[in-house]
């Protein structure tokens, strides 16, 4: 009589074998990835830092390598898990959350996207198409792209490091137990823990903060350049410019401030008469002593 679960048993057997091979493969993949990463870093330094174009840059190299590494990993995951089990959901999430693209599209890259969106403003489909094309050829636009790529390069470097640690962790567990891990949700937790630590560390690094600051500066420069062009267009067509509207807002704010002060004067005069003898309590000496102590924080200077 045919065993109805034979195919499932076969699947489990092949899955186990595939996993054993995969853990060995993974070490190799990591070695390749770190080698490419090191090469990309060398190239970047030799060329005076910057990934400065969309293709053929160190970012491009590191991105391809991350993609290749991830594709091998996800193929292995897809081949290894039995479909129709709870593990499948965990495995899908694992692939989704390990995808280097996820680091470039959500979460950590959100700031990058926000800054770029702020710089570019609203995109009207065909409005000012020619002007937009010329804007995109400007020095400011190229600088914005260059700093965006550099920022992404820093993020991808973090992904490579996180994947390296993940591989090391799995290999260590495999060597100790002799069996490949079979709990995919456990793997997911391991990855998220490693990724979180790596990201928190990266985000505090001078490299990351510097890349982000430069990206923000480039976005401000681009936006300023863009606004300058719009102002010229407005002036030529007798449309109020941003500068003029800002000036108006400044005047309104100042007038409102004056009005508030004038409205308050009679009330303050009345209160002053009623409280002629009331003296504000002096601060106790305790405050001065403690304040001197608290200067420890005040002595710090902003990071330059």
């Amino acid at each position, binding site marked *: 009589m045919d065993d109805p679960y034979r195919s499932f048993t076969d699947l489990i057997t092949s899955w186990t074998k595939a996993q054993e091979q995969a853990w060995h493969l993974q070490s190799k993949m990591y070695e390749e990835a770190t080698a490419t990463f090191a090469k990309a870093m060398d190239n970047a330094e030799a060329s005076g830092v910057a990934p400065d174009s969309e293709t053929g840059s160190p970012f491009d190299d590191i991105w391809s390598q991350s993609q290749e590494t991830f594709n091998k990993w996800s193929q292995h995951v897809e081949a290894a898990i039995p479909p129709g*089990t709870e593990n499948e959901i965990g495995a899908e999430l694992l692939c989704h959350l390990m995808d280097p693209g996820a680091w470039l599209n959500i979460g950590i890259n959100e*700031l990058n996207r926000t*800054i770029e969106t702020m710089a570019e403003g609203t995109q009207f489909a065909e409005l000012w198409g020619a002007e937009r094309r010329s804007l995109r050829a400007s020095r400011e636009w190229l600088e914005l792209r260059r700093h965006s790529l550099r920022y992404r390069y820093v993020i991808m470097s973090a992904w490579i490091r996180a994947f390296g640690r993940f591989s090391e962790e799995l290999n260590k567990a495999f060597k100790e137990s002799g069996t490949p891990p079979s709990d995919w949700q456990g793997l997911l937790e391991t990855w998220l823990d490693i990724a979180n630590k790596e990201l928190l560390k990266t985000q505090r690094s001078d490299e990351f*903060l510097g890349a982000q600051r430069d990206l923000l500066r480039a976005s*401000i420069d681009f936006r300023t350049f863009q606004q300058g062009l719009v102002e010229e267009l407005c002036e030529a067509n007798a449309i109020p410019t941003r500068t003029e509207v800002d000036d108006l807002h400044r005047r309104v*704010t100042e007038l409102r401030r004056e009005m508030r002060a004038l409205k308050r004067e009679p009330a303050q005069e009345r209160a002053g008469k009623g409280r002629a003898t*009331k003296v504000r309590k002096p601060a106790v000496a305790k405050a001065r002593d*403690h304040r001197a102590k608290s200067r420890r924080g005040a002595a710090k200077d902003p990071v330059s």
Partner: protein
Amino acid sequence: MIMGFQDDFGQALRQTARVFGGFRKLSEIRDEDVQIAQTPKDEVFRSDRAVLYHYRPLDEKPPETGPILIVYSLIGRYTVIDLQEDRSLVRNLLTRGCDLYVIDWGTPSRADRFLTIDDYVDGYLADCVDHICRETGHDSITLLGICEGGTFSAAFAALYPEKVKNLILTVTPIDFHADGEHNQQGQGYINLWIRSLQPEDIDDLVETFGNLPGGLMASVFELISPIRSMTKYNRDLLEIIGDEDRLLNFLRMEKWLADRPDHPGEAAKQWLKDLYHQNKLVKNEFRLSGRTVDLGQITMPILNIFAENDHIVPAACSSALGGLVGSDDYTDVPLPGGHIGVFVSAKSQGLVGETIASWLRARN
């Protein structure tokens, strides 16, 4: 092996049914199903965008306290303190007999870029305090400041101590450079991020965008817990999607998070440069309306509540207040939880409200 497979398969089926049911429910939820800040209140005063509300008592009993004015931050909206019926600082205080007011700063536009902290503290906040005093016949009221609103409240109390009966601060930054002390993983990132900018960067940012864009700050907040930002719309949502109550809780919080107003530009410059960069408040160098804000002038009773696991305002930045004020009646209350969790988490419900109410009762 066979039993294991059947268990797995059955689990998978149940999980799938739960998830599909959840997604169907999600598609049926309308915006009006996800309401926040629903505790009844009445508008009693308005100045420009700032609106003063007075909460109605939850029962017929007269309030047991004098007026308390809640002052929220310009970063985010006050609605988080009344997220839903069972997660509401407002309701927790009302049920304990508090007479509550709140200022809604509104949603600033580019037209508000020239508003300064002077305008907020010495203008809108001062006007609201005066209005409450006038309407209720009190000479002074209790201020309950939250985060940046706490810093505003402390500044107001230093400038006008005679108008503040009690000062209650929650998760409030005072010493903006104390973040290096006793940091847990990820804490103090906002301080670090802001200090990574040069003063000229902040000036240029405001000059170009008019205000400090709310979206930019929201993105920086996401960096505080990067993995949580990556997982919340997949793994986390999958975990709760089959549970209608938890799903609605999640959506209410998302609704609050999405409502991130821009911070008026000139006020942002003061907030970031004078306070985060130069830490002027603790040096007694912070000036508003031509006067120095001297924390030593804060002589009324003070309750300072902060969160031990606050990633946005590290506890040390808040607790520094104790050594700076002139009051002899100062109470520090460290609570478990994070910056927002201290108000909205299930565990903290009632804790903040009871701490405040019992502290006030002891001083009535």
